Protein backbone atom coordinates (compact mmCIF):
# COMPACT_ATOMS: atom_id res chain seq x y z
CA UNK A 1 0.00 0.00 0.00
CA UNK A 2 1.29 3.42 -0.91
CA UNK A 3 -0.13 6.32 1.04
CA UNK A 4 0.66 9.82 -0.18
CA UNK A 5 -0.78 12.95 1.37
CA UNK A 6 0.73 16.13 -0.02
CA UNK A 7 0.00 19.82 0.32
CA UNK A 8 2.24 22.21 -1.51
CA UNK A 9 1.82 25.61 -3.06
CA UNK A 10 3.88 27.95 -5.08
CA UNK A 11 2.85 30.97 -7.13
CA UNK A 12 -0.07 30.06 -9.32
CA UNK A 13 -0.18 26.40 -8.35
CA UNK A 14 -1.40 24.38 -5.42
CA UNK A 15 -1.15 20.63 -5.00
CA UNK A 16 -3.50 18.99 -2.52
CA UNK A 17 -3.85 15.23 -2.81
CA UNK A 18 -4.48 12.31 -0.50
CA UNK A 19 -3.94 9.05 -2.36
CA UNK A 20 -4.13 5.44 -1.27
CA UNK A 21 -2.55 3.43 -4.04
CA UNK A 22 -2.06 -0.29 -4.47
CA UNK A 23 1.34 -1.55 -3.34
CA UNK A 24 1.76 -3.63 -6.49
CA UNK A 25 1.25 -3.28 -10.23
CA UNK A 26 1.40 -0.11 -12.29
CA UNK A 27 -0.45 2.99 -11.16
CA UNK A 28 -0.76 5.79 -13.70
CA UNK A 29 -0.81 9.42 -12.63
CA UNK A 30 -2.70 10.85 -15.56
CA UNK A 31 -3.44 14.48 -16.36
CA UNK A 32 -2.60 17.46 -18.50
CA UNK A 33 0.67 19.34 -18.07
CA UNK A 34 0.43 21.51 -15.00
CA UNK A 35 -1.94 19.12 -13.24
CA UNK A 36 0.70 18.31 -10.60
CA UNK A 37 1.59 14.76 -11.58
CA UNK A 38 5.35 15.34 -11.87
CA UNK A 39 5.34 17.34 -8.63
CA UNK A 40 3.69 14.36 -6.89
CA UNK A 41 6.40 12.07 -8.17
CA UNK A 42 9.21 14.47 -7.14
CA UNK A 43 7.76 14.75 -3.64
CA UNK A 44 7.60 10.97 -3.30
CA UNK A 45 11.25 10.72 -4.40
CA UNK A 46 12.19 13.50 -1.96
CA UNK A 47 13.49 15.75 -4.75
CA UNK A 48 10.92 18.28 -3.61
CA UNK A 49 9.60 18.81 -0.13
CA UNK A 50 5.87 19.30 0.34
CA UNK A 51 5.06 21.85 3.06
CA UNK A 52 2.71 19.31 4.58
CA UNK A 53 3.15 15.73 3.65
CA UNK A 54 2.91 12.12 4.65
CA UNK A 55 4.47 9.49 2.43
CA UNK A 56 4.41 5.81 3.26
CA UNK A 57 5.48 3.06 0.89
CA UNK A 58 4.47 -0.33 2.19
CA UNK A 59 6.12 -0.46 5.63
CA UNK A 60 8.44 2.56 5.29
CA UNK A 61 7.56 6.17 6.10
CA UNK A 62 9.57 8.65 4.00
CA UNK A 63 7.95 11.85 5.10
CA UNK A 64 5.80 12.85 8.02
CA UNK A 65 5.77 16.61 8.37
CA UNK A 66 3.89 16.42 11.67
CA UNK A 67 6.81 14.53 13.17
CA UNK A 68 9.35 16.63 11.21
CA UNK A 69 10.46 13.49 9.44
CA UNK A 70 11.94 13.88 5.98
CA UNK A 71 14.10 11.10 4.60
CA UNK A 72 16.58 12.57 2.06
CA UNK A 73 16.23 11.22 -1.49
CA UNK A 74 19.43 9.15 -1.40
CA UNK A 75 18.07 7.18 1.55
CA UNK A 76 14.75 6.33 -0.12
CA UNK A 77 14.55 3.02 -1.94
CA UNK A 78 13.09 4.54 -5.11
CA UNK A 79 14.07 4.13 -8.70
CA UNK A 80 13.43 7.26 -10.75
CA UNK A 81 13.21 7.36 -14.52
CA UNK A 82 13.27 10.91 -15.84
CA UNK A 83 11.65 12.14 -19.03
CA UNK A 84 15.05 12.56 -20.63
CA UNK A 85 17.20 9.55 -19.81
CA UNK A 86 19.69 11.82 -18.01
CA UNK A 87 22.58 9.39 -18.28
CA UNK A 88 25.89 10.60 -16.88
CA UNK A 89 27.87 11.76 -19.94
CA UNK A 90 31.24 11.13 -18.27
CA UNK A 91 30.49 7.46 -17.72
CA UNK A 92 30.11 4.48 -20.06
CA UNK A 93 26.81 2.64 -20.25
CA UNK A 94 28.14 -0.03 -17.89
CA UNK A 95 29.39 2.56 -15.39
CA UNK A 96 26.02 4.31 -15.57
CA UNK A 97 24.27 1.04 -14.78
CA UNK A 98 26.69 0.27 -11.93
CA UNK A 99 26.36 3.74 -10.41
CA UNK A 100 23.30 2.85 -8.35
CA UNK A 101 24.02 -0.88 -8.11
CA UNK A 102 27.33 -0.47 -6.29
CA UNK A 103 25.82 1.98 -3.81
CA UNK A 104 23.38 -0.50 -2.31
CA UNK A 105 24.48 -3.28 0.04
CA UNK A 106 24.80 -6.70 -1.57
CA UNK A 107 22.17 -8.15 0.74
CA UNK A 108 19.58 -5.70 -0.62
CA UNK A 109 20.18 -6.48 -4.30
CA UNK A 110 17.20 -8.19 -5.85
CA UNK A 111 17.83 -7.25 -9.50
CA UNK A 112 21.21 -8.24 -10.91
CA UNK A 113 23.07 -6.89 -13.93
CA UNK A 114 22.36 -9.91 -16.12
CA UNK A 115 18.64 -9.76 -15.40
CA UNK A 116 18.34 -6.00 -15.95
CA UNK A 117 20.30 -5.96 -19.20
CA UNK A 118 18.33 -8.94 -20.50
CA UNK A 119 14.96 -7.41 -19.52
CA UNK A 120 15.70 -4.22 -21.44
CA UNK A 121 17.73 -5.73 -24.26
CA UNK A 122 20.82 -3.58 -23.70
CA UNK A 123 23.52 -6.23 -23.28
CA UNK A 124 25.23 -5.19 -26.51
CA UNK A 125 25.50 -1.52 -25.47
CA UNK A 126 27.52 -1.83 -22.25
CA UNK A 127 30.85 -0.59 -23.67
CA UNK A 128 29.31 2.37 -25.46
CA UNK A 129 29.10 5.97 -24.35
CA UNK A 130 25.74 7.70 -23.85
CA UNK A 131 26.53 10.26 -26.60
CA UNK A 132 26.55 7.48 -29.18
CA UNK A 133 23.13 6.00 -28.43
CA UNK A 134 19.66 6.63 -29.81
CA UNK A 135 17.01 8.21 -27.61
CA UNK A 136 15.26 4.87 -27.18
CA UNK A 137 18.45 3.08 -26.17
CA UNK A 138 19.31 5.83 -23.68
CA UNK A 139 15.89 5.58 -22.09
CA UNK A 140 16.14 1.78 -21.78
CA UNK A 141 19.48 2.23 -20.00
CA UNK A 142 17.90 4.85 -17.75
CA UNK A 143 15.21 2.35 -16.81
CA UNK A 144 17.72 -0.47 -16.20
CA UNK A 145 19.88 1.87 -14.10
CA UNK A 146 16.90 2.66 -11.88
CA UNK A 147 15.92 -1.02 -11.61
CA UNK A 148 19.44 -1.99 -10.53
CA UNK A 149 18.98 -0.09 -7.26
CA UNK A 150 16.37 -2.78 -6.41
CA UNK A 151 13.80 -0.10 -5.61
CA UNK A 152 10.77 -0.67 -3.43
CA UNK A 153 8.94 1.75 -5.72
CA UNK A 154 9.73 2.65 -9.32
CA UNK A 155 8.80 6.20 -10.33
CA UNK A 156 8.58 6.91 -14.05
CA UNK A 157 8.06 10.48 -15.22
CA UNK A 158 6.75 10.35 -18.80
CA UNK A 159 9.61 8.09 -19.89
CA UNK A 160 8.32 8.02 -23.47
CA UNK A 161 7.28 11.65 -23.90
CA UNK A 162 10.60 12.79 -25.37
CA UNK A 163 10.63 10.01 -27.97
CA UNK A 164 9.06 9.80 -31.42
CA UNK A 165 6.34 7.21 -31.97
CA UNK A 166 8.72 4.67 -33.49
CA UNK A 167 10.95 4.80 -30.40
CA UNK A 168 7.90 4.65 -28.16
CA UNK A 169 6.82 1.43 -29.78
CA UNK A 170 10.36 0.13 -29.35
CA UNK A 171 10.21 0.69 -25.58
CA UNK A 172 6.60 -0.18 -24.76
CA UNK A 173 7.11 -3.96 -24.97
CA UNK A 174 9.98 -3.66 -22.47
CA UNK A 175 7.75 -1.73 -20.10
CA UNK A 176 5.07 -4.40 -20.45
CA UNK A 177 7.69 -7.02 -19.59
CA UNK A 178 8.64 -5.12 -16.43
CA UNK A 179 5.00 -5.07 -15.49
CA UNK A 180 4.63 -8.79 -16.10
CA UNK A 181 7.94 -10.05 -14.71
CA UNK A 182 8.99 -7.82 -11.82
CA UNK A 183 7.27 -7.49 -8.51
CA UNK A 184 8.04 -3.79 -8.06
CA UNK A 185 5.18 -1.31 -7.75
CA UNK A 186 5.38 1.43 -10.38
CA UNK A 187 4.02 4.98 -10.41
CA UNK A 188 3.85 6.03 -14.02
CA UNK A 189 3.25 9.67 -14.97
CA UNK A 190 1.73 10.16 -18.38
CA UNK A 191 -0.56 12.39 -20.39
CA UNK A 192 -1.14 9.73 -23.06
CA UNK A 193 -4.28 7.68 -22.55
CA UNK A 194 -3.07 4.97 -24.90
CA UNK A 195 0.12 4.49 -22.89
CA UNK A 196 -1.86 4.37 -19.67
CA UNK A 197 -4.34 1.90 -21.17
CA UNK A 198 -1.51 -0.41 -22.20
CA UNK A 199 0.49 -0.34 -18.99
CA UNK A 200 -1.53 0.67 -15.96
CA UNK A 201 -3.65 -1.41 -13.60
CA UNK A 202 -4.79 1.56 -11.60
CA UNK A 203 -5.26 5.17 -12.62
CA UNK A 204 -5.28 8.46 -10.75
CA UNK A 205 -6.74 11.35 -12.67
CA UNK A 206 -5.14 14.66 -11.68
CA UNK A 207 -6.38 18.11 -12.59
CA UNK A 208 -5.16 21.45 -11.21
CA UNK A 209 -3.35 19.81 -8.33
CA UNK A 210 -6.31 17.72 -7.22
CA UNK A 211 -7.18 14.05 -7.73
CA UNK A 212 -10.51 13.81 -9.58
CA UNK A 213 -10.60 10.03 -9.49
CA UNK A 214 -8.57 7.03 -8.43
CA UNK A 215 -9.52 3.49 -9.31
CA UNK A 216 -8.91 0.34 -11.35
CA UNK A 217 -8.15 1.10 -14.97
CA UNK A 218 -11.10 -0.80 -16.54
CA UNK A 219 -13.82 0.89 -14.51
CA UNK A 220 -12.26 4.33 -14.40
CA UNK A 221 -11.64 4.71 -18.12
CA UNK A 222 -15.30 3.83 -18.77
CA UNK A 223 -16.68 6.49 -16.41
CA UNK A 224 -18.69 9.13 -18.24
CA UNK A 225 -18.55 11.62 -15.36
CA UNK A 226 -14.80 12.18 -15.79
CA UNK A 227 -13.06 14.30 -18.44
CA UNK A 228 -11.25 11.10 -19.48
CA UNK A 229 -14.18 10.04 -21.67
CA UNK A 230 -14.08 13.32 -23.59
CA UNK A 231 -10.66 12.87 -25.13
CA UNK A 232 -10.23 11.84 -28.73
CA UNK A 233 -8.34 8.73 -27.57
CA UNK A 234 -10.96 7.86 -24.95
CA UNK A 235 -11.84 4.21 -24.69
CA UNK A 236 -11.89 1.18 -22.43
CA UNK A 237 -9.47 -1.55 -21.57
CA UNK A 238 -10.53 -5.15 -22.03
CA UNK A 239 -8.51 -7.90 -20.45
CA UNK A 240 -9.03 -11.44 -21.54
CA UNK A 241 -7.33 -14.72 -22.39
CA UNK A 242 -6.33 -15.98 -25.80
CA UNK A 243 -8.65 -18.84 -26.72
CA UNK A 244 -7.68 -19.40 -30.38
CA UNK A 245 -5.43 -18.12 -33.11
CA UNK A 246 -6.21 -18.19 -36.83
CA UNK A 247 -2.77 -18.21 -38.41
CA UNK A 248 -4.17 -17.93 -41.92
CA UNK A 249 -5.94 -14.63 -41.29
CA UNK A 250 -3.70 -13.64 -38.35
CA UNK A 251 -6.69 -13.17 -36.13
CA UNK A 252 -6.64 -13.82 -32.45
CA UNK A 253 -9.71 -14.73 -30.42
CA UNK A 254 -9.83 -13.17 -26.98
CA UNK A 255 -12.11 -14.68 -24.36
CA UNK A 256 -13.64 -12.01 -22.11
CA UNK A 257 -13.62 -12.69 -18.36
CA UNK A 258 -16.60 -14.38 -16.68
CA UNK A 259 -18.60 -14.86 -19.89
CA UNK A 260 -18.63 -16.90 -23.07
CA UNK A 261 -18.26 -13.73 -25.13
CA UNK A 262 -15.15 -13.23 -27.15
CA UNK A 263 -13.74 -10.70 -29.59
CA UNK A 264 -11.41 -11.20 -32.51
CA UNK A 265 -8.34 -9.01 -32.91
CA UNK A 266 -5.76 -8.63 -35.66
CA UNK A 267 -2.60 -9.57 -33.77
CA UNK A 268 0.69 -11.44 -33.94
CA UNK A 269 0.50 -15.10 -32.86
CA UNK A 270 0.07 -15.84 -29.16
CA UNK A 271 -0.15 -19.04 -27.16
CA UNK A 272 -3.58 -20.18 -26.07
CA UNK A 273 -4.37 -19.22 -22.48
CA UNK A 274 -2.07 -16.17 -22.44
CA UNK A 275 -3.50 -12.98 -20.97
CA UNK A 276 -3.90 -10.03 -23.33
CA UNK A 277 -5.04 -6.51 -22.76
CA UNK A 278 -6.75 -4.53 -25.51
CA UNK A 279 -7.81 -0.98 -25.75
CA UNK A 280 -11.06 -0.34 -27.57
CA UNK A 281 -11.49 3.30 -28.56
CA UNK A 282 -14.97 4.75 -28.10
CA UNK A 283 -14.88 6.09 -31.66
CA UNK A 284 -14.38 2.54 -33.02
CA UNK A 285 -17.55 1.15 -31.45
CA UNK A 286 -20.82 1.43 -33.38
CA UNK A 287 -24.31 0.39 -32.29
CA UNK A 288 -27.15 -1.40 -34.05
CA UNK A 289 -30.58 -2.67 -33.00
CA UNK A 290 -30.07 -6.07 -34.63
CA UNK A 291 -27.05 -8.28 -35.07
CA UNK A 292 -25.81 -7.46 -38.56
CA UNK A 293 -24.42 -10.74 -39.91
CA UNK A 294 -23.31 -9.63 -43.34
CA UNK A 295 -20.77 -7.01 -42.39
CA UNK A 296 -17.01 -6.55 -42.47
CA UNK A 297 -17.14 -5.81 -38.78
CA UNK A 298 -16.15 -9.02 -37.03
CA UNK A 299 -17.09 -8.31 -33.46
CA UNK A 300 -20.71 -8.09 -32.48
CA UNK A 301 -21.47 -8.16 -28.78
CA UNK A 302 -24.89 -8.04 -27.11
CA UNK A 303 -24.80 -5.10 -24.71
CA UNK A 304 -27.02 -3.13 -22.37
CA UNK A 305 -27.06 0.68 -22.37
CA UNK A 306 -26.09 2.04 -18.96
CA UNK A 307 -26.11 5.76 -19.63
CA UNK A 308 -25.34 8.35 -22.26
CA UNK A 309 -24.22 11.95 -22.29
CA UNK A 310 -23.23 14.75 -24.63
CA UNK A 311 -19.63 14.76 -25.81
CA UNK A 312 -17.23 17.69 -26.26
CA UNK A 313 -18.40 17.86 -29.87
CA UNK A 314 -22.04 18.99 -30.09
CA UNK A 315 -22.74 16.47 -32.87
CA UNK A 316 -21.51 13.50 -30.77
CA UNK A 317 -22.77 11.60 -27.74
CA UNK A 318 -20.99 9.06 -25.56
CA UNK A 319 -22.81 5.87 -24.60
CA UNK A 320 -21.70 3.67 -21.72
CA UNK A 321 -22.48 0.02 -22.35
CA UNK A 322 -22.19 -3.21 -20.43
CA UNK A 323 -21.19 -6.44 -22.13
CA UNK A 324 -21.84 -9.08 -19.48
CA UNK A 325 -19.75 -7.23 -16.91
CA UNK A 326 -17.20 -5.74 -19.30
CA UNK A 327 -17.69 -1.98 -19.68
CA UNK A 328 -17.59 -0.44 -23.17
CA UNK A 329 -17.81 3.13 -24.46
CA UNK A 330 -19.25 4.14 -27.84
CA UNK A 331 -18.97 7.55 -29.43
CA UNK A 332 -21.82 7.97 -31.93
CA UNK A 333 -23.61 10.92 -33.51
CA UNK A 334 -26.49 12.58 -31.74
CA UNK A 335 -28.50 11.87 -34.88
CA UNK A 336 -27.95 8.09 -34.52
CA UNK A 337 -28.84 8.23 -30.85
CA UNK A 338 -32.23 9.73 -31.76
CA UNK A 339 -32.72 7.36 -34.71
CA UNK A 340 -32.13 4.33 -32.47
CA UNK A 341 -33.92 6.01 -29.54
CA UNK A 342 -31.08 4.99 -27.24
CA UNK A 343 -32.05 4.95 -23.56
CA UNK A 344 -30.67 3.29 -20.40
CA UNK A 345 -31.61 -0.38 -20.07
CA UNK A 346 -31.96 -0.87 -23.82
CA UNK A 347 -30.54 -4.06 -25.36
CA UNK A 348 -28.33 -3.41 -28.39
CA UNK A 349 -25.53 -4.85 -30.44
CA UNK A 350 -22.12 -3.22 -30.19
CA UNK A 351 -19.90 -3.61 -33.24
CA UNK A 352 -16.14 -3.33 -32.89
CA UNK A 353 -13.82 -3.43 -35.88
CA UNK A 354 -11.16 -6.07 -35.36
CA UNK A 355 -8.52 -3.81 -36.89
CA UNK A 356 -9.38 -1.02 -34.50
CA UNK A 357 -8.62 -2.94 -31.35
CA UNK A 358 -5.28 -1.76 -30.04
CA UNK A 359 -3.50 -4.70 -28.52
Amino acid at each position, binding site marked *: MIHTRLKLRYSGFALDVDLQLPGRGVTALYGHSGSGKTTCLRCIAGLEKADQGFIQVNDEVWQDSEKHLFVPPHKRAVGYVFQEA*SLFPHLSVLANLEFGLKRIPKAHRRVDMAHATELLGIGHLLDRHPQHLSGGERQRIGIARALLTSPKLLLMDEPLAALDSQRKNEILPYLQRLHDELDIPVLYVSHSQDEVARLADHIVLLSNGKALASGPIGETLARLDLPLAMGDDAGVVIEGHVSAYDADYQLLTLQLPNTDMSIRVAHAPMVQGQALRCKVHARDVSLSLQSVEQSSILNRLPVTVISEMGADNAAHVLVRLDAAGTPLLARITRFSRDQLAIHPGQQLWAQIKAVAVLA
Partner: protein
Amino acid sequence: MMLSSADFAAIWLTLKLASLTTVILLVIGTPIALWLSRTSSWLRGPVGAIVALPLVLPPTVIGFYLLLALGPHGFIGQFTQSLGLGTLTFSFAGLVIGSVLYSMPFVVQPLQNAFSAIGTRPLEVAATLRANPWDTFFSVILPLARPGFITASILGFAHTVGEFGVVLMIGGNIPDKTRVVSVQIYDHVEAMEYAQAHWLAGAMLVFSFAVLLALYSSRKTKTGWS
Protein backbone atom coordinates in the same frame (compact mmCIF):
# COMPACT_ATOMS: atom_id res chain seq x y z
CA MET B 1 74.12 32.91 -19.38
CA MET B 2 71.53 35.55 -20.03
CA LEU B 3 69.71 35.27 -16.67
CA SER B 4 71.45 36.05 -13.40
CA SER B 5 71.06 34.01 -10.24
CA ALA B 6 68.85 36.80 -8.90
CA ASP B 7 66.63 36.36 -11.94
CA PHE B 8 66.38 32.61 -11.30
CA ALA B 9 65.56 33.25 -7.65
CA ALA B 10 62.76 35.57 -8.74
CA ILE B 11 61.41 32.97 -11.20
CA TRP B 12 61.50 30.26 -8.57
CA LEU B 13 59.75 32.50 -6.04
CA THR B 14 57.10 33.41 -8.61
CA LEU B 15 56.38 29.76 -9.46
CA LYS B 16 56.19 28.89 -5.76
CA LEU B 17 53.81 31.76 -5.09
CA ALA B 18 51.59 30.99 -8.08
CA SER B 19 51.40 27.25 -7.33
CA LEU B 20 50.56 27.73 -3.69
CA THR B 21 48.02 30.43 -4.49
CA THR B 22 46.33 28.21 -7.09
CA VAL B 23 46.05 25.26 -4.72
CA ILE B 24 44.64 27.42 -1.92
CA LEU B 25 42.21 29.06 -4.34
CA LEU B 26 40.93 25.72 -5.64
CA VAL B 27 40.28 24.58 -2.08
CA ILE B 28 38.45 27.70 -0.90
CA GLY B 29 37.10 28.77 -4.29
CA THR B 30 35.25 25.50 -4.96
CA PRO B 31 32.78 25.80 -2.07
CA ILE B 32 32.31 29.52 -2.79
CA ALA B 33 31.62 28.83 -6.47
CA LEU B 34 29.34 25.90 -5.62
CA TRP B 35 27.37 28.07 -3.22
CA LEU B 36 27.15 30.96 -5.70
CA SER B 37 25.90 28.61 -8.43
CA ARG B 38 23.18 26.99 -6.28
CA THR B 39 21.95 29.52 -3.73
CA SER B 40 18.91 31.72 -3.96
CA SER B 41 19.95 33.68 -0.86
CA TRP B 42 20.06 37.48 -0.99
CA LEU B 43 23.75 37.23 -0.10
CA ARG B 44 24.49 35.86 -3.56
CA GLY B 45 24.75 39.36 -5.07
CA PRO B 46 27.00 40.90 -2.40
CA VAL B 47 29.31 37.87 -2.23
CA GLY B 48 29.57 37.68 -6.01
CA ALA B 49 30.43 41.39 -6.13
CA ILE B 50 33.11 41.09 -3.43
CA VAL B 51 34.72 38.15 -5.25
CA ALA B 52 34.75 40.17 -8.49
CA LEU B 53 36.20 43.36 -6.94
CA PRO B 54 39.83 42.62 -7.89
CA LEU B 55 38.76 42.65 -11.53
CA VAL B 56 38.04 46.35 -11.39
CA LEU B 57 40.06 47.78 -8.49
CA PRO B 58 43.61 49.03 -9.06
CA PRO B 59 46.00 46.56 -7.34
CA THR B 60 47.29 49.44 -5.28
CA VAL B 61 43.91 49.80 -3.59
CA ILE B 62 43.85 46.13 -2.59
CA GLY B 63 47.49 46.36 -1.59
CA PHE B 64 46.84 49.45 0.50
CA TYR B 65 44.01 47.91 2.51
CA LEU B 66 45.94 44.67 2.93
CA LEU B 67 48.94 46.62 4.16
CA LEU B 68 46.75 48.22 6.82
CA ALA B 69 45.03 44.96 7.78
CA LEU B 70 48.21 42.88 7.91
CA GLY B 71 50.28 45.62 9.55
CA PRO B 72 50.98 45.88 13.30
CA HIS B 73 47.78 47.88 13.93
CA GLY B 74 45.50 46.00 11.53
CA PHE B 75 43.06 43.34 12.74
CA ILE B 76 44.94 40.53 10.97
CA GLY B 77 48.25 41.90 12.18
CA GLN B 78 46.99 42.02 15.78
CA PHE B 79 45.80 38.46 15.43
CA THR B 80 49.05 37.10 13.95
CA GLN B 81 51.04 38.97 16.60
CA SER B 82 48.93 37.45 19.36
CA LEU B 83 49.80 34.05 17.91
CA GLY B 84 53.48 34.98 18.10
CA LEU B 85 53.88 35.03 14.32
CA GLY B 86 54.68 38.71 14.05
CA THR B 87 53.22 40.61 11.11
CA LEU B 88 52.83 39.20 7.62
CA THR B 89 53.65 42.37 5.71
CA PHE B 90 56.84 42.11 3.66
CA SER B 91 56.80 38.33 3.97
CA PHE B 92 56.06 35.45 1.58
CA ALA B 93 52.98 34.49 3.62
CA GLY B 94 51.64 38.02 3.18
CA LEU B 95 52.16 37.72 -0.56
CA VAL B 96 50.20 34.48 -0.62
CA ILE B 97 47.27 36.12 1.19
CA GLY B 98 47.36 39.07 -1.20
CA SER B 99 47.57 36.80 -4.25
CA VAL B 100 44.67 34.65 -3.09
CA LEU B 101 42.44 37.71 -2.84
CA TYR B 102 43.75 39.25 -6.03
CA SER B 103 43.32 36.09 -8.16
CA MET B 104 40.07 34.94 -6.54
CA PRO B 105 37.71 35.94 -9.39
CA PHE B 106 39.87 34.13 -11.94
CA VAL B 107 39.28 30.86 -10.12
CA VAL B 108 35.78 31.32 -8.71
CA GLN B 109 34.10 32.55 -11.88
CA PRO B 110 35.09 29.68 -14.22
CA LEU B 111 34.14 27.20 -11.49
CA GLN B 112 30.81 28.93 -10.92
CA ASN B 113 30.07 28.82 -14.66
CA ALA B 114 30.99 25.15 -14.81
CA PHE B 115 28.77 24.28 -11.84
CA SER B 116 25.86 26.29 -13.25
CA ALA B 117 26.21 24.55 -16.61
CA ILE B 118 25.86 21.14 -14.94
CA GLY B 119 22.44 22.14 -13.62
CA THR B 120 20.47 20.27 -10.99
CA ARG B 121 19.39 17.21 -12.98
CA PRO B 122 22.63 15.16 -12.63
CA LEU B 123 22.55 15.82 -8.90
CA GLU B 124 18.96 14.63 -8.68
CA VAL B 125 19.81 11.53 -10.70
CA ALA B 126 22.74 10.79 -8.39
CA ALA B 127 20.50 11.19 -5.33
CA THR B 128 17.91 8.76 -6.69
CA LEU B 129 20.81 6.34 -7.30
CA ARG B 130 21.64 6.50 -3.56
CA ALA B 131 24.65 8.84 -3.73
CA ASN B 132 24.88 11.17 -0.71
CA PRO B 133 25.89 14.82 -1.32
CA TRP B 134 29.65 14.25 -0.77
CA ASP B 135 29.60 11.18 -2.97
CA THR B 136 27.74 13.19 -5.63
CA PHE B 137 30.34 15.95 -5.45
CA PHE B 138 33.24 13.58 -6.09
CA SER B 139 31.57 11.17 -8.52
CA VAL B 140 29.43 13.56 -10.57
CA ILE B 141 30.14 17.27 -10.05
CA LEU B 142 33.94 17.03 -10.06
CA PRO B 143 34.26 15.00 -13.30
CA LEU B 144 31.56 17.00 -15.10
CA ALA B 145 33.18 20.30 -14.06
CA ARG B 146 36.68 19.19 -15.03
CA PRO B 147 37.06 21.70 -17.88
CA GLY B 148 36.06 24.42 -15.42
CA PHE B 149 38.71 23.27 -12.94
CA ILE B 150 41.37 23.26 -15.65
CA THR B 151 40.43 26.78 -16.77
CA ALA B 152 40.31 28.00 -13.17
CA SER B 153 43.74 26.53 -12.37
CA ILE B 154 45.37 27.99 -15.46
CA LEU B 155 43.85 31.44 -15.05
CA GLY B 156 44.54 31.53 -11.31
CA PHE B 157 48.18 30.51 -11.83
CA ALA B 158 48.81 32.82 -14.78
CA HIS B 159 47.16 35.78 -13.16
CA THR B 160 49.23 35.36 -10.00
CA VAL B 161 52.41 35.19 -12.09
CA GLY B 162 51.37 38.48 -13.66
CA GLU B 163 50.80 40.27 -10.37
CA PHE B 164 52.79 43.45 -9.63
CA GLY B 165 50.95 46.19 -7.76
CA VAL B 166 49.76 44.16 -4.79
CA VAL B 167 53.22 42.61 -4.36
CA LEU B 168 54.91 45.96 -4.32
CA MET B 169 52.43 47.40 -1.81
CA ILE B 170 52.50 44.59 0.76
CA GLY B 171 55.66 42.68 -0.03
CA GLY B 172 58.10 45.28 -1.13
CA ASN B 173 61.20 44.04 -2.89
CA ILE B 174 63.07 41.54 -0.72
CA PRO B 175 65.23 38.98 -2.59
CA ASP B 176 64.06 35.35 -2.10
CA LYS B 177 61.08 36.48 -0.05
CA THR B 178 58.97 38.88 -2.04
CA ARG B 179 60.93 39.75 -5.17
CA VAL B 180 58.90 38.06 -7.90
CA VAL B 181 59.61 38.24 -11.66
CA SER B 182 57.47 41.29 -12.31
CA VAL B 183 59.30 43.22 -9.57
CA GLN B 184 62.66 41.98 -10.82
CA ILE B 185 61.86 43.35 -14.29
CA TYR B 186 60.96 46.67 -12.70
CA ASP B 187 64.31 46.67 -10.90
CA HIS B 188 66.21 45.96 -14.11
CA VAL B 189 64.48 48.80 -15.91
CA GLU B 190 65.11 51.18 -13.01
CA ALA B 191 68.79 50.23 -13.16
CA MET B 192 68.83 50.69 -16.98
CA GLU B 193 69.66 46.96 -17.44
CA TYR B 194 67.50 46.69 -20.55
CA ALA B 195 69.11 43.48 -21.81
CA GLN B 196 68.24 41.66 -18.56
CA ALA B 197 64.74 43.16 -18.60
CA HIS B 198 64.31 41.91 -22.17
CA TRP B 199 65.04 38.30 -21.27
CA LEU B 200 62.67 38.21 -18.33
CA ALA B 201 59.91 40.22 -20.01
CA GLY B 202 60.21 38.05 -23.12
CA ALA B 203 59.97 34.89 -21.01
CA MET B 204 56.83 36.21 -19.33
CA LEU B 205 55.29 37.09 -22.67
CA VAL B 206 56.00 33.66 -24.14
CA PHE B 207 54.76 31.91 -20.99
CA SER B 208 51.52 33.88 -20.85
CA PHE B 209 50.83 33.43 -24.54
CA ALA B 210 51.52 29.69 -24.38
CA VAL B 211 49.21 29.27 -21.41
CA LEU B 212 46.36 31.17 -22.99
CA LEU B 213 46.89 29.42 -26.33
CA ALA B 214 46.63 26.04 -24.61
CA LEU B 215 43.52 27.19 -22.78
CA TYR B 216 41.64 28.57 -25.77
CA SER B 217 42.64 25.73 -28.10
CA SER B 218 41.34 23.11 -25.67
CA ARG B 219 37.86 24.68 -25.70
CA LYS B 220 36.99 23.41 -29.14
CA THR B 221 35.07 20.36 -28.08
CA LYS B 222 32.48 20.29 -25.38
CA THR B 223 30.67 17.16 -24.33
CA GLY B 224 27.00 17.73 -23.77
CA TRP B 225 24.68 16.38 -21.14
CA SER B 226 22.71 13.51 -22.54
